[in-house]
């Protein structure tokens, strides 16, 4: 199928890059490694007919936890190239992503991860935190962990008419001190396109060896200002943005 060139600064490309970003975090993310796109360099669109729409993108990757004192965050990870396939809207399947990054993932976080892991396993009590909005430096790894775990949900919930980010962590609770540390997170996601706040409850596990895994995820429709009612946002692209209402397990 011919690939139509897209302007890399326009939203179809940047939305596809956001999906690739979520994909990378599900595979490589940790409390000390949280990735984001820092700009799309090249983009193309391939109409896959019944299969859906495939975006071919090249973007630069940044690692976002290296924010030590103040200003500059960027920790350049090189160039990534990804294929993001959005299935047809009526199929409601999550997008399919393939992604390779040149020279990336040289971030060696094993020392920090091991250190945090041991501290949590050997602590006398279980850790918890709330309203982690002003990022307290000591809580930062848990903000990042929440962000990485959120990517599992955001990857699944993405389509061509969404741009999802984790906006806020209401609270998190460490559930166990077992080899697979388990945490419960109450998070708020933000969809840039509809501007809505989506409330999710996650149960996740983490260990340096096992990485981050989301075991359970539940959307909470009760929050009024987080309401995900049956809204029709006239985007000019998709006729309807229909919101799901059921509980989901990952």
């Amino acid at each position: 199928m011919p690939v139509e060139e897209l302007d890399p600064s326009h939203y179809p490309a940047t939305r596809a890059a956001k999906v690739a970003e979520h994909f990378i975090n599900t595979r490589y993310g940790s409390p000390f490694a949280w990735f984001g796109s820092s700009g799309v360099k090249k983009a193309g669109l391939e109409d896959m007919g019944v299969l859906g729409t495939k975006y071919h993108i090249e973007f630069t990757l940044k690692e976002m936890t290296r924010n030590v004192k103040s200003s500059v965050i960027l920790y350049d990870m090189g160039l990534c190239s990804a294929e993001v396939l959005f299935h047809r809207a009526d199929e409601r399947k999550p997008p399919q992503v393939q992604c390779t990054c040149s020279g990336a993932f040289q971030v060696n976080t094993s020392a920090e991860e091991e250190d945090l892991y041991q501290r949590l396993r050997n602590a006398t009590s279980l850790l918890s935190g709330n309203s982690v909005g002003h990022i307290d430096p000591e809580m930062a790894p848990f903000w990042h962990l929440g962000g990485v775990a959120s990517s599992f949900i955001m990857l699944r919930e993405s389509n061509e008419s969404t741009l999802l980010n984790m906006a806020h962590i209401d609270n998190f609770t460490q559930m166990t001190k077992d080899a697979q540390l388990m945490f419960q997170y109450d998070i708020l996601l933000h969809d840039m396109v509809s501007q809505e706040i989506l409330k999710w409850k996650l149960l996740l596990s983490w260990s340096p060896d096992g990485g981050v895994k989301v075991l359970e995820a539940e959307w909470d429709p009760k929050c009024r200002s987080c309401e995900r009612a049956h809204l029709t946002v006239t985007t000019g692209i998709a006729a309807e943005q229909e919101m799901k209402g059921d509980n989901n397990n990952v």
Partner: protein
Amino acid sequence: TALILTSYYILSKHFYLPANYKNVQCTPVCKQRQHAKSNKTRTSFCHACFVTHGILIFCRLIKGHEARNYDYTIYHPLAEISTWMGQMVSENPDVVTLVDYGSTYENRTISLLKIGLKSDVTKKAVWMDCGIHAREWISPAFCQYFVKEILRTYKTDSKVEELLKNLDFYITPVLNVDGYLYTWKDNTTRLWRKTRSPGTDGCDCIGTDLNRNFEANWGMVGVSQNCCSNVYPGFKALSEAEARSVVDFVEPRKNDIVCFFTIHSYGQLILFPYGHPNVTAPNYNELAEISQAAAKAIKAVHGMTYTVGSFAEALYPAAGSSMDWARLIGIPFAFTFELRDEGSFELPENQILPTCEETYAGVHSVITYVHNKIFYSAAITASATLWTTLLATWFSCTFFS
């Protein structure tokens, strides 16, 4: 009094005190400034912090807090921003005036600072509004920084002085006053976006998206007619008092206002008209060029990438924005800046200063371009005309004498 003032002095130097004293919990900012490892020390510190804040509030009431000590690296609640605005006037009376130009649904005053060197003739002007969307806290923070910076530099930087000489700046630090106040209420309200006006026609959610409420292809795209939606455009265009306040001020001055900025977050984008995908601004190319230059200026400060494009192309199609309306009524240069970061409205306070610094560079680059286009190319045109006339005269004199 001496004891109070001394302790005030010492405390203001060594502790940051929570701004929102209505919040009984120890605020995260108090926690930030304290590096003790044990919970016990932290709790004691928090109590001390809370108590000393009480003393400080008392002292501020008596003494008045000098804006010289105003901290531009933290987020301020509404009351402090209002006080600060008054202080900007009292400290710079020859260049700053406070203008109350409207009111909100909950009957709060909407004010702007008019900044510029006095002139006998009507001046061209620049409009900047911050805080249309309540949760975008970095936006009001930037307006405050911008004001501080031009006032700090105009006496020593001849370029800034020239800007203030030739232009008036109308800066609204918080436009959606009701919404902004609401986001400070508690941790369930922090992510509010809209105004606080009630729903109509039996729809029982609160608030209208101010940036969909203007008369610019109102309601056509990028909205939801469900009043619970965060992009609800209102039951009609300009249903919101806040939007009407902007229109009532800007419209009569539309021939003088040459540049219109509306500051938002997040996303790191510089957007220009239009939000409606089927409308193209006649000066699209020029707007794109200006925006690219601004993005370059931003990147030079701290290396951050800001994406450039028309609103509809770079972000999403959306009608009824203040920027679109400004362009439609003829203001030639209108921009929406979406500041840091790329994922959250709750930008950490340690990023306020770098964000403001880079945004200032971007905005300054735009203003300089617009200023020079108006005040220099006119001069260039005039002198070119003069030379052409002289040459033609000489030529004709030489050949026909």
